[in-house]
């Protein structure tokens, strides 16, 4: 089969008030290929995808968009769908209360006199799922599925429209390693069927695993397009940041002190499934100035360890938690914070930030009692503190009064870190601290975490990114099925050993 050009973009320019988001961009997709789009956050990748999918209508940008060789002017997402373009967004857009089949046919249910043909919906869905090689029950509620399977439903939904061009925006950011493998296999199958995929992701290993061509974006321009087999990760990263990134994980010499947090035999029963445990006999210690990495697959109990100690999981719990030798059990995050704990949660938009609020208010939120006198907040002091952190952490924001929702992911995460630094924590919990954050900002966040550890904070970091776990941690524990299945010092830890422990189901 000769690859034909499915999608072409020429000289795309898109301006927002005061910013040129896209500046003369060229891009194309061939049938049966995966064309990866790499670039830091804010480089213009998402803007381009919104133009391709019709979210930014024709007229709001200049340049030419061709599908199958004919020039098209999409005015809405419906237009692009009927032209065979399907987009799977980073945030899943499924209705959790509906079944897999209902979600796939949402908005275009086959009906007879307004009555949905339930059997037809189920049959067509199971045929589609079988065709795609997805093993799931069409009548299961989407809310009961794992994130990975929800992602597959999303892809199935896009392909049910007979899409020829599939845009995937950070499709694996919420997937575990096994789920990612299944996902990549799915994409390979789609390629064989002649579908052209645009893959946007920060994970370069995935890019190299699956992409045929790679285009790098920087500051709204398409810098270069490579054949994937002709380049390596280093070159792509250098193009993305515009400079050579010598060391992502700076080795900082730290003095590790005595134990700060000691967890012993922590067991947390599953809230709804009797007889099953979220955590089983989990024990570990973190010392002053140490970074402890927690690795493991999704659902292995990593997040639950942090949430349970932090008092954010309701329900019973057994075992002991000691802070500096003192036995503690927090019933609420408030108590944990008062004892010097801090938690950077995995979902910063929902759990970490009040998006509508300003940068300064978000930074002050967990330490208001300190910023205030007699319960009255000192605005100018609050602003001063916020400005100090904006400078120290190099948070890119117009000013401290800007709403955090307008900041990029990396800068939002820095706001979250600033919020917790202000509480002067003894123990810092990080849950997927760099999810969805670009390479440049990642390096800065690693530096912030390293600096905090160097100042004597005991850090516990949960992460799905093995290079991150290996690069940052002094020690790694591995979780599987709610139990600790491995513990490695920095020198012992390798990707292979960690993966072996992470899949050691009993």
């Amino acid at each position, binding site marked *: 089969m000769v690859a034909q050009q499915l999608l072409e973009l020429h000289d795309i320019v898109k301006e927002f008030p005061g910013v040129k988001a896209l500046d003369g961009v060229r891009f194309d997709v061939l049938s049966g290929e995966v064309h990866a789009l790499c670039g830091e956050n804010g480089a213009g990748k998402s803007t381009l995808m919104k133009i391709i999918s019709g979210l930014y209508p024709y007229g709001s940008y200049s340049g030419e968009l061709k599908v199958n060789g004919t020039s098209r002017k999409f005015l809405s997402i419906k237009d692009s769908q009927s032209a065979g373009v399907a987009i799977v967004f980073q945030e899943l857009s499924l209705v959790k209360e509906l079944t897999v089949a209902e979600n796939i046919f949402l908005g275009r249910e086959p009906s007879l006199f307004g009555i949905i043909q339930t059997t037809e919906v189920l049959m067509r869905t199971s045929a589609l799922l079988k065709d795609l090689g997805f093993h799931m029950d069409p009548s299961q509620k989407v809310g009961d599925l794992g994130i990975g399977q929800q992602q597959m439903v999303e892809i199935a939904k896009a392909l049910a429209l007979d899409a020829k061009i599939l845009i995937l925006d950070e499709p694996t950011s919420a997937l575990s390693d096994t789920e990612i493998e299944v996902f990549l296999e799915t994409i390979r199958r789609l390629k064989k069927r002649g579908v052209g995929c645009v893959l946007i992701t920060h994970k370069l290993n995935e890019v190299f695993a699956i992409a045929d061509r790679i285009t790098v974006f920087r500051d709204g321009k398409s810098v270069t397009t490579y054949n994937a087999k002709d380049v390596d990760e280093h070159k792509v990263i250098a193009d993305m940041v515009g400079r050579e990134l010598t060391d992502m994980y700076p080795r900082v010499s730290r003095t590790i002190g005595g134990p700060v947090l000691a967890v012993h035999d922590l067991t947390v029963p599953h809230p709804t499934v009797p007889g099953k445990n979220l955590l089983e006999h989990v024990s570990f210690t973190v010392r002053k100035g140490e970074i402890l990495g927690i690795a493991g697959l999704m659902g292995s109990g990593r997040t639950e360890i942090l949430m349970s100690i932090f008092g954010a999981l309701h329900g019973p719990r057994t075992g002991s938690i000691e802070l500096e030798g003192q036995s503690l059990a927090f019933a609420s995050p408030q108590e944990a914070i008062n004892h010097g704990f801090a938690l950077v949660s995995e979902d910063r938009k*929902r*759990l970490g*930030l*009040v998006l509508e609020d300003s940068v300064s208010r978000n930074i002050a939120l967990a330490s208001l*009692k300190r910023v205030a006198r007699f319960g009255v*907040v000192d*605005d100018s002091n609050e602003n001063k503190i916020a400005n100090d952190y904006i400078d120290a952490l190099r948070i890119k924001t117009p000013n401290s009064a800007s709403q955090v929702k307008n900041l990029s992911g990396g800068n939002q995460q820095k706001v979250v870190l600033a919020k917790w630094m202000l509480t002067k924590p003894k123990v810092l919990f990080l849950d997927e601290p760099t999810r969805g954050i670009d390479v440049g900002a990642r390096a800065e966040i690693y530096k912030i975490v390293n600096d905090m550890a160097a100042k004597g904070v005991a850090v516990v970091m949960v992460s799905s990114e093995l290079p991150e776990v290996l690069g940052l941690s002094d020690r790694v524990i591995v979780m599987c099925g709610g139990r600790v299945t491995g513990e490695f010092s920095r020198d012992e830890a390798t990707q292979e050993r960690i993966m072996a422990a992470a899949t050691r189901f009993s």
Partner: protein
Amino acid sequence: MNLASRLKQSWRMLTMVFALIAIWIIFQWVTDGAFLQPRNLSNLFRQMTVTGTLAIGMVLIIVAGHIDLSVGSVVCFLGVILTMLMQKGWSAESALMVTLVSGIAISAVQGWLTAFQKVPAFIVTLAGMMIFRGASMGVTEGVTIPLEDSWIKTFGSAYLGQEAGWVLTFVAIVIFASLRVQKYRNSVAHGVSTSGFGSTLAMIVAFSSGVLLFNSTMSRYEGIPYPVLLMIVIMVAFHFIATKTVFGRHVYAVGGSVEAAHLSGVNVRKIVLGNFLLMGLLTTIGAMILTARVESAQPDAGQLLELDAVASCVIGGTSLMGGKGTIYGAILGALVMESLNNGMSLANLESFWQYIVKGVVLVAAVWLDVVSQKSSR
């Protein structure tokens, strides 16, 4: 705060003020000049005090993501308690004390059910609305209870003397000016970006002329009505609570994102309960003002008051999704609502029109909000 975001924030207030002025001009024209008479304006402000007082508390409850539909019935019920106790020979002070305790107790139960038992506030307070309407009718046996003579009546019909009015006006101006100057100095000292001393001066001038205009208008009738003064004090106090205190910050954070607030150590349940307790205090004050104004407690008093209060908040820019809303906005909203009531009665429009027009204004205000937010995206 920089100029752009400040302008964006005050844009909403400014459109409100212009809308209010437009409404006033229309009524002035329709009523052949009767509307803007000092006497009528004095009446207008007096009439808005109950709705305004309740709207102040309602803002905080709505910002935190809840609602209180019971306030109309509770105002009525508390009025009944107050008048009945005084009829039995209780002193005004002790009767008011018992009323206050009852008001706080009622809101404490409703707040506890909402915050700690997770029953939706809509249901809890809808039930409260029915229960206390029923209780009022039962206790009064459908009869109006007159309010005994006491100082409480001051909050119905009495006025602050003219001299006192002027003294108060100047005190207000001096306090406002010195606070502004202080704030300016602070921001300069901290090196925080400011828009120069010009904007501080402009705010002082605007505030002074507003207050002077208000007081001179009121003086041309009898002076500032006591209930209006009380409402202004409450307004300033609650604005302070909402914007300057840790409690206020937490209210907005809870409304913006419950989960983020919880994980940042905010005691969400206490915040919600606290909101309801403040509402209890304001309901008691509202009941006192209303009873004093009509000099009696009636079993059907305060009907639809809860909806007027919610409408005032919403017209004033409060979002029912939570997280957004200001005290001053709600008071402006209440003033718009009461201007419509007052103007239409003055123009001898039949009362059914008042409902229709108020409904249209409510939808229009929110529609404008939604449209302007879309376009700013």
